């Protein structure tokens, strides 16, 4: 337990590990939904410091990882068209579509730009009235209010050269799909703190009741993650299933009402493909018909494009917790962060990339040093 000394509060960390050890009497599988939490867990070796009976399963909570190949191909098609300035968050650029990625489009002369905020794309549209500016609007509930505001501002400002390619995904339907699957082995969930800071905690109550799984809203610091795990194990051991909020310094029951209202105005719920997983009913947001004139799929005639998934990439099984990243034959050989087969190896939040970065090639390897915490958004 020497790595405990590097936690930001080693005394509390030691107490939490000891308490989890004390109350654990049998095997439990706990899924952390958010990629930011996965990162925190792997980087700090939390999974290796926990009792052997506690198995952490890394969930699908990385928007870059679950954006479907078909949507990537649409982005690549639009970004290649003359006169287009294609704007994206930086970590989408290396995600492979069927035959190339946005970097390649850029190197072939496409005007692909990384933006920090979706409002940067709106400003680009204002500054370049002679160009078509397209923003790739991906993300979970945390990112949707920002993307919705960009569309709202574009309309307010009368911009006719701005549009969005929308591929938003939602956490609760993904949890529903996982617990409903015949292959499910998850006993309890850590819900993503920042998603809940926007949406509140109410959506999770029905999941807890219908499926009898404990769900604990959890933050991203190593100590937050440990406390979330402790609360899930405590519930599992006494046989209860409740919704708990272990991140109340940021998350309220109602969430951020202004952000929810903006999202409801601009987007509407739709079925959504998840890369490697398939279609999950009512698991995404698309543009509301009220904002149809900002729909890049219609404007650039890509709405009917369809693309098959790579058969060599097992990211779907990784995202559902059925295999660990290093159990995929392609891990670290055919598939590396430089030449990824699938998106879980691309994004810094992806489980495969996290394992690769921290050399977690074998679950019995020595723990990596505990150094850091993260504040995830997705």
């Amino acid at each position, binding site marked *: 337990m020497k790595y405990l000394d590097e936690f930001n509060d080693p005394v509390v960390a030691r107490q939490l590990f000891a308490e989890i050890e004390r109350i654990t009497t049998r095997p439990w599988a706990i899924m952390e939904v958010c990629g930011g939490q996965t990162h925190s867990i792997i980087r700090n070796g939390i999974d290796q410091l926990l009792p052997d009976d506690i198995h952490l399963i890394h969930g699908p909570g990385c928007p870059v990882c679950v954006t479907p190949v078909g949507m990537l191909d649409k982005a690549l098609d639009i970004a290649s068209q003359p006169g287009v300035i294609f704007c994206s968050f930086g970590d989408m650029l290396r995600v492979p579509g069927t035959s190339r990625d946005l970097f390649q489009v850029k190197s072939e002369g496409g005007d692909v730009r*990384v933006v920090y905020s979706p409002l940067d794309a709106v400003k680009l549209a204002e500054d*370049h009235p002679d160009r078509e500016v397209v923003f790739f609007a991906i993300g979970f509930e*945390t990112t949707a209010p920002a993307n919705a505001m960009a569309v709202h501002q574009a309309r307010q400002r009368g911009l006719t050269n701005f549009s969005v390619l929308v591929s938003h995904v939602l956490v609760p339907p993904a949890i529903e799909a996982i617990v409903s699957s015949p292959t499910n082995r998850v006993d309890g969930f850590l819900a993503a703190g920042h998603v809940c800071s926007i949406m509140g905690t109410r959506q999770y109550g029905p999941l807890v009741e219908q499926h009898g799984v404990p769900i604990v809203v959890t933050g991203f610091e190593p100590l937050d993650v440990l406390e979330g795990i402790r609360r899930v194990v405590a519930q599992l051991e006494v046989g209860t299933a409740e919704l708990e909020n272990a991140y109340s310094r940021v998350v309220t029951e109602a969430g*951020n009402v202004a952000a929810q209202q903006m999202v409801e105005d601009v987007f509407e719920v739709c079925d959504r493909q998840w890369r490697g997983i398939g279609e999950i009913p009512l698991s995404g947001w698309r543009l509301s018909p009220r904002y149809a004139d900002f729909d890049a799929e219609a404007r650039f005639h890509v709405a009917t494009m369809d693309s098959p998934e790579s058969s060599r990439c097992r990211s779907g099984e990784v995202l559902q917790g059925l295999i660990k990243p290093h159990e995929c034959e392609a891990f670290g050989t055919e598939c590396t962060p430089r030449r990824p087969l699938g998106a879980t190896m691309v994004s810094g939040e992806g489980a495969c990339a996290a394992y690769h970065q921290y050399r977690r090639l074998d679950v019995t390897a020595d723990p990596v040093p505990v150094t850091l915490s993260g504040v995830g958004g997705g």
Partner: protein
Amino acid sequence: MCLAVPGQIVDIREDRGTRMATIDFDGIRKEICLAYLPDVDVGDYAIVHVGFAISKIDEASALETLAMFKELGVLDEELGASIDDDGDHDAIGEQVSP
């Protein structure tokens, strides 16, 4: 884009009806939107995701998290640096603010 990074509000203003702020992430300054977190003042710390403040945070937690992000080298990436064709990170300010 997944990260949410804490920073300190150094300036607040209105831009065409939207409340905007300048925020300082350990020396890196960015323009952010306060539409979803109207109840902040200059000097407060907030958690920011893709240019939008999403919740307040106390100074001690903010500084601790910032220091760790800095140590990891993820701040530049998250705050608008791009990855070039060699896989290295470089600033893109001139591209997004022509």
